[in-house]
């Protein structure tokens, strides 16, 4: 079993996550897509760790999870705050910062 398969899977998942970010308007789903991209990156880290025979990749993946958790907390708080004022979770709604 060649570990590069894992990396390719990671690339596929990453691309799907990017697509989600680009096409979905619901902020929560966009957020989920971002999480998916992070997970894809983690998978790549784990695969690389295995390829190289040391645990550093896993440690980095662990840190990515911690940061992702922090990011989710703050991001969701922002979504709730925006929802509270606009009664909507669409990311196309807050578009005042433009020409």
């Amino acid at each position, binding site marked *: 079993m060649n570990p590069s398969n894992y990396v390719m899977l990671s690339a596929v998942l990453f691309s799907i996550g990017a697509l989600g*970010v680009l096409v979905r308007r619901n902020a929560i789903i966009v957020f989920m897509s971002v999480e998916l991209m992070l997970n894809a990156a983690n998978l790549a880290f784990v695969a690389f760790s295995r390829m190289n025979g040391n645990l550093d990749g896993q440690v980095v993946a662990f840190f990515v999870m911690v940061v992702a958790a922090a990011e989710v907390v703050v991001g969701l708080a922002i979504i709730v705050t925006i929802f509270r004022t606009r009664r909507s979770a669409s990311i*196309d709604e807050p578009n005042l910062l*433009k020409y």
Partner: protein
Amino acid sequence: MTMLMPAEGVFSLIWVLIALPLAGAAILLFAGRRTNSWGPYLGVLTVLGSAVIGVLMLLEMMQQPADGRTYGQELFTWIQVGGFSADMAFQLDQLSIVFVLLITIVGSLIHVYSLGYMAHDKDRRKFFGYLNLFVAAMLLLVLANNYLLLYVGWEGVGLASYLLIGFWQHKPSAAAAAKKAFIINRVGDVGLSLAIMLMFVTFGSVSFQDVFGVADQASEGTLTAIGLLLLLAACGKSAQFPLQAWLLDAMEGPTPVSALIHAATMVTAGVYLIVRSNVIFTAAEWAAIAVIVVGLITMWMGAIIGSAKDDIKKSLAGSTMSQIGYMITAAGLGPIGYVFAIFHLLTHGVFKAGLFLGAGSVMHGMNDNVNMRRYGALRSAMVITAGTFIVCYLAIIGIPPFDGFFSKDDIIHASFERSPIIGVLAMLAAGLTGFYMTRMVAMTFFGKARWEDDVHPHESPKVMTIPLIILAIGAAFLGMALVYWGDIESWLEPVVGFEENPLPLASWVYEATTLALVLIGVAIGWIMYARREVPVEAPRGTVLTRAAREELYGNQVNDVLVVQPTHYASRSLVWFDNKAVDGFVNGSAAFVGGLSGRMRRYQTGFVRSYALSMVGGVLLVVLALVLVRMS
């Protein structure tokens, strides 16, 4: 180069010479109105103090052997940058002491005179502050032991001159004259600063000792360049052709200023500069010839202008130009002339100060009218003024045994020693001097009274007449004293060198010829202006008279050669700035503005659009990575 003696005893007070008037200026100018009552007297005292110290130094110096009369005093290192250093250091030698005495004694007399002349001016304190400032700067100029410090004094007298010419700045003409003097002097100052830079580049130092010590090692081209630049500086400060135009307008200042600055001291700074740099001019022959040419041209220009002007002060200013032309010519002659340049400078300082102060005294009695056509027959109305004026007049035209006879004759002698052409020109100019000075004296003191109706001529107060009397005594005896008792040639010889060339004819021939020419001039002047009626309105006159009234079109020449091209150039530059520079700047701004106006349409505010462009960027990066890997 003579050895520098340490400044001990009375010579340790060299710095005090400068510090006294400087302190006076500082107190008068900074302490403001509360010094109004006693300030002018303080101003007089500081200069008197310097004069006393100067006299003591002269007496002490005369006790020393001839080669031990150069004293150096170093106060502190002023500038130390890399290989360049300039000290705040002074050098007092036979040349400097002559100037110190001229400046302080004549300066003192003029200060005293000003007490009376400016008695009713509400800015009297400021006037004395400026005068003190001028004296300090002038002393710094002649006492400096390096060119850079000399330059400080040079600029200092320029500043004081500017302030004093424009002292009555409520008159637009005075303000304009001050600016004119300042700007024309800048041209000369550029010459001096370039000369200093060239000296530093060539010799690695700007102190007199170093520069003169190694001057003969430099190429003649460099020395000529330095000499010509120094000549340019001298032309600016001494109102020599072609930078002469400011001096006549400078008569807008109060008359004591004209006497002190624009007759006796500051305008002779150029002569001092050339004589002080004698080593350079002796080595650079063409620069010396240029000096002679400039001197001769100015000598004649000044005399011609002085013959036509009806304004007494401007006529005297023309005379000053002419006399300084003599000095410059003498300074250009080399070792045969340096001594006489200084000698004439000294005597001229005395009698021209007397003439100016006399003119001021006349104006004082004539409601400040300066038009000589409105004078006449004043000899009985103001006896002392007339008497002193006539003594000084005899001195300037060179009647023996008065001052001018000795000093001017020496210059004419020296000119003949160099070349008969120079000698003849100088001799004829002496005749012209006789004419224009006689014209002045005749129009002012003789003939019929042509006074304006409300004028009541009266003699000036004692505080003004006593300085006049002292100056007249000087004008009468100084020349004789210096020649027969002071032995000026051997006094200055260690500093400037002295040599005599044989003359083809006996010297009395030259003296007699000169005297005859002068007497012819006097006779013509007397016939034209004392015997005949002087019209109140100036007649149209010949072409030459009209040109001379216009100052030989010096201003017009400057206007055509400098002012109008400058205007034209600045207008072109304004046009260029408006169209090309601003056009480019505004055009690029408009371009960027228009571009951003279109670009900002892409700032839709939709996060997903931004994310899309990010992904596009990522795609490019990935593509680049893949391509690099493939290659």
